[in-house]
């Protein structure tokens, strides 16, 4: 498992730890204990409320999440968690967050990278940042991984993953342009691939309505089992699919020498390898799954 054929061989030269980053890390603002909101706009109060009510219920009773390989999430230092992505209003991010909170020996908050769209759309702009969403800007990911040493969750498929139709379920889309690999390499943070089964069936998309999408300015305007005919509430109407979340073995990104991101070929190879690991894992999990609803 450790040395798959796809991953490039590690280089002999070990990267030197740059003194500049640790010096800058020491200059991070001190935490003000009176505050309930972080510098990223994340609100402990609102997140805690969501966690106690919606997430907890979804995790334990609705999706009955089963988690494997939680020990692959490091308990210290920055790490980039890379997952497949699906569902019109994807529940996978919340469930991965909750899995780490519930199952991990040393639970840590997870920062979820989201499209810039959410920062520009009224309503979303308020809520998404409060519950841990961070715009997917390379500088944001770098600061979180390298300076603040946090866990960051990315969905390299992005929109292409969430807008895909039910008939294409569990077929991974292109993993962006490998930007997530470059971000992890720059931060010298490991990548933890994750395979999630169940989210595709929780809120399948049957079709897209382009005209309504244009009129509302949303990312997409899907037709799901409950939306739009049940109105906005239909957006929360998840079907009770059984969730399986499997954390895979971390990929160290500091094994290819100094500034490996300069080699675009290497970045693409690593991105493709991580994509195929997740895809293989999905196939493995699906072949073992007997029922969509009962697992």
């Amino acid at each position: 498992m450790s040395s798959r054929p796809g991953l490039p061989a590690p280089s002999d030269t070990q990267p030197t730890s740059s003194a500049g980053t640790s010096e800058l890390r020491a200059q991070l603002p001190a935490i003000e204990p009176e505050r309930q909101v972080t510098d990223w706009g994340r609100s402990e109060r609102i997140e805690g409320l969501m966690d106690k009510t919606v997430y907890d219920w979804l995790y334990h009773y609705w999706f009955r999440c089963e988690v494997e390989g939680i020990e692959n999430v490091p308990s210290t230092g920055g790490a980039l968690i890379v997952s497949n992505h699906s569902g019109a209003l994807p529940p996978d991010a919340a469930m991965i967050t909750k899995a780490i909170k519930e199952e991990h020996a040393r639970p840590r908050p997870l920062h979820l990278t989201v499209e810039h769209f959410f920062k520009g759309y009224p309503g979303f702009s308020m809520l998404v940042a409060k519950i841990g969403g961070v715009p997917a800007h390379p500088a944001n990911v770098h600061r979180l991984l390298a300076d603040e040493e946090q866990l960051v969750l990315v969905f390299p498929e992005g929109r292409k993953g969430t807008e895909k139709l039910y008939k294409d379920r569990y077929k991974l889309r292109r993993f962006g342009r490998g930007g997530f690999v470059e971000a992890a390499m720059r931060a010298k943070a490991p990548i933890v691939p994750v395979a999630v089964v169940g989210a595709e069936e929780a809120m399948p998309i049957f079709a897209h309505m382009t005209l309504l999408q244009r009129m509302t300015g949303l990312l997409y305007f899907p037709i799901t089992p409950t939306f739009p005919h049940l109105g906005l509430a239909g957006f929360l109407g998840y079907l009770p699919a059984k969730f399986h979340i499997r954390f895979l073995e971390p990929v160290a990104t500091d094994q290819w020498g100094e500034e490996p991101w300069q080699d675009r070929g290497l970045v693409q190879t690593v991105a493709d390898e991580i994509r195929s690991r997740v895809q293989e894992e999905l196939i493995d999990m699906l072949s073992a799954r007997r029922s969509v609803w009962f697992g």
Partner: protein
Amino acid sequence: MRRVLVTGVSSYWGGKLAQALEQDPDVETIVGVSPHDPTLELERTEFVRVGTQHALLRRIVQAAEIDTVIDSRLVVDSIAASPREAHEVNVIGTMNILAACGGPDSPVRKVVFKSSAHYYGCERDDPAFFTEPMQRPNAPRTRLESDIVEAENAVHGFAERNPQVTVTVLRFANGLGPDLDTSHGRVLRLPAVPCILGFDPRYQFVHEDDIVGALEYAVSNDLPGVYNVAGDGVLVLSEIASLLGRPLAPVLPPWGTGLAAAGLRLAGVRIPEEMAQQLRYGRGLDNRKLKAAGCRLRYTTREAVQKLAEDLRVRELRQGAGAPYRYEREVEEFLRYSPSVRRRAEREADSSAR
């Protein structure tokens, strides 16, 4: 020993900086220039009423052998000047002042330029924390922003052409403080804090004393390059409103915000374009480079807002307690230069002779 020229000495921070430098025994001479009268009481500072005519400034610089120039006159708030004036001050003025400082025979060895975080703009696709080398992802949206970008580009050009001069550019976050009059300060003093419906932007402020402190630090220490100056911590607007004890008023609609802002202006609340952008997307700065260079700011963003809140509670009381001291130029000049005024040193010499 330093010989310092402060431009824009009539502005709040120009005056405050001159006052602070007066306390510094290392500063031998302070010359303050501005086309307007100073608004703060100055003792040691020589005030010269001059605009930004580079020939005149150059003569002052040469004659007084100025080695440090602090350019604090940039217009960074649309309420401070009309767009035309702002352009004149920011672009043409900066060009002239740099022309007065440059050249092989110039005694100037240090230029400190007070800039603004409006250099980065405020857009949807921004990073959460701007670092100094970051370029703005989009072209400047407002006139003020493009003027600031142009002024800074002139400063960077000057730094390249004059390697013997240490050029410091300080990009300040929005200033906040009891004595400071800015568009944000005005809006936060309202009975309710206006906001755009559906947005809770991230804000970072720098306390008025820290603005002066950072400028002073750049005078007494060599900081070549660009530095962000902002208090630690980024607050969201709802947090700021609760610290001030004011409700949030989502009076601006997410679409057609400019139109609603124009309507509010009729009601006496002015929300300039660059502020509307901040109310929508917010902005954060990475201040670690400045802190690593040894400059300590006294207030975090939260403390700066708290200082404003404290002032709001006692403001009416203070206003009733008496008008603040106004700088009376003629009196000061009389006291300083008239032969009729007997200086303390002379008096002491007299009494000891007797």
